[in-house]
């Protein structure tokens, strides 16, 4: 299993200025201000479960842009219903990446409920037809273009290693700054 940062770096390197990037709270949101992201970024620092529906609203409002959203397994476990909402709305321009490390990393690395969730199966059962699972950078690099080309909402389950010693930077931007800079 690969560490988070190389996976996040690889994803960012595949974005363009025509994309939009939305992130749930946590490590990805904290790394993003330190990366050269070519797309507008809207990163949450609270509101668990809001990232995917927020991205859905953006995708529906701007069909000319491709919206990529990063969600965590802890957040989605709290609100898996959103998968059905996305499937019903069926935006062709939404790619969801679910980062799975089985931890509430943002609050100290507490474990999720001790069960192995079949995220790909859950997504398919909710009506998401384009689902992939990846656990290393080459697989991610292959999955993202396929998701973009699906012309339907797609989910990529990204398995990453949990490293309690990972030096994740703190939040460095305030919500007002994030919103003000976010322009499509």
């Amino acid at each position, binding site marked *: 299993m690969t560490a988070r940062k190389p996976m996040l770096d690889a994803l960012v390197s595949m974005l363009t200025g025509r994309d*939009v990037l*939305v992130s749930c709270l946590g490590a990805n949101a904290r790394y993003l201000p330190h990366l050269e992201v070519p797309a507008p970024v*809207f990163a*949450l*620092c*609270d*509101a*668990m*479960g*809001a*990232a*995917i*529906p*927020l*991205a*859905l*609203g*953006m*995708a*529906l*409002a*701007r069909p000319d*842009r491709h919206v990529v959203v990063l969600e965590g397994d802890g957040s989605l476990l709290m*609100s898996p*219903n*959103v998968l*059905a*909402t996305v499937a*019903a*709305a069926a935006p062709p321009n939404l790619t969801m990446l679910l980062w799975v490390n089985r931890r509430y990393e943002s609050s100290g690395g507490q474990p999720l409920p001790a069960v192995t969730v079949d995220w790909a199966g859950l997504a398919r059962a909710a009506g998401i037809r384009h689902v992939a699972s990846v656990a290393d950078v080459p697989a991610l690099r292959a999955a993202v273009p396929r998701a973009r080309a699906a012309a339907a909402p797609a989910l990529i389950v990204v398995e990453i290693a949990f490293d309690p010693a990972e030096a994740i930077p703190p939040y460095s931007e305030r*919500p*007002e700054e*994030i*919103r003000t800079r*976010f322009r*499509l």
Partner: protein
Amino acid sequence: MTGAQQIVAGLEAAGVSIAASVPDTWIGRLMEAVRRSPRIRAVDAAREEEAVAVACGANLAGGRGAVLIQNAGLLNCGGVLAGLVELYRIPCFLVVSLRGDHRDPVYYHAPKGRVTEETLRAWRLPYARADHRGDLAVQVRQGVEFCAETRGPFVLLISGEDLA
């Protein structure tokens, strides 16, 4: 024009193009009118928190979204209203069916009716009760514009009689 049609006309006049909803009996009737609008896309959400986030996403992307839910769903939304709408200062207009007040004939809604307006005040959410004796389209349009001007939420409470 029915009250539901007036509300939809107000949404259209305000430039709302996305209406995210979880229905109850009253909101379901309103959404029937929304679905007849050629200018508004109805988004059926599984939970009310999603509807709030969908509308926020539309607003952040340069469009205009609105939320149509029951007060039970509004009571679910404390976290997303605080952690998204308030924290990031995002316009968010909500039409909420006020179940359980003296006008509601269904007994089991009463506990929600007793706490809805107090909750709105505690959460510091600007709100108004719709008045079907006036022009509902104007009340809706003013609510949407209030959200845009204040970069925040506004809740318009409706009752079944407002839709007739």
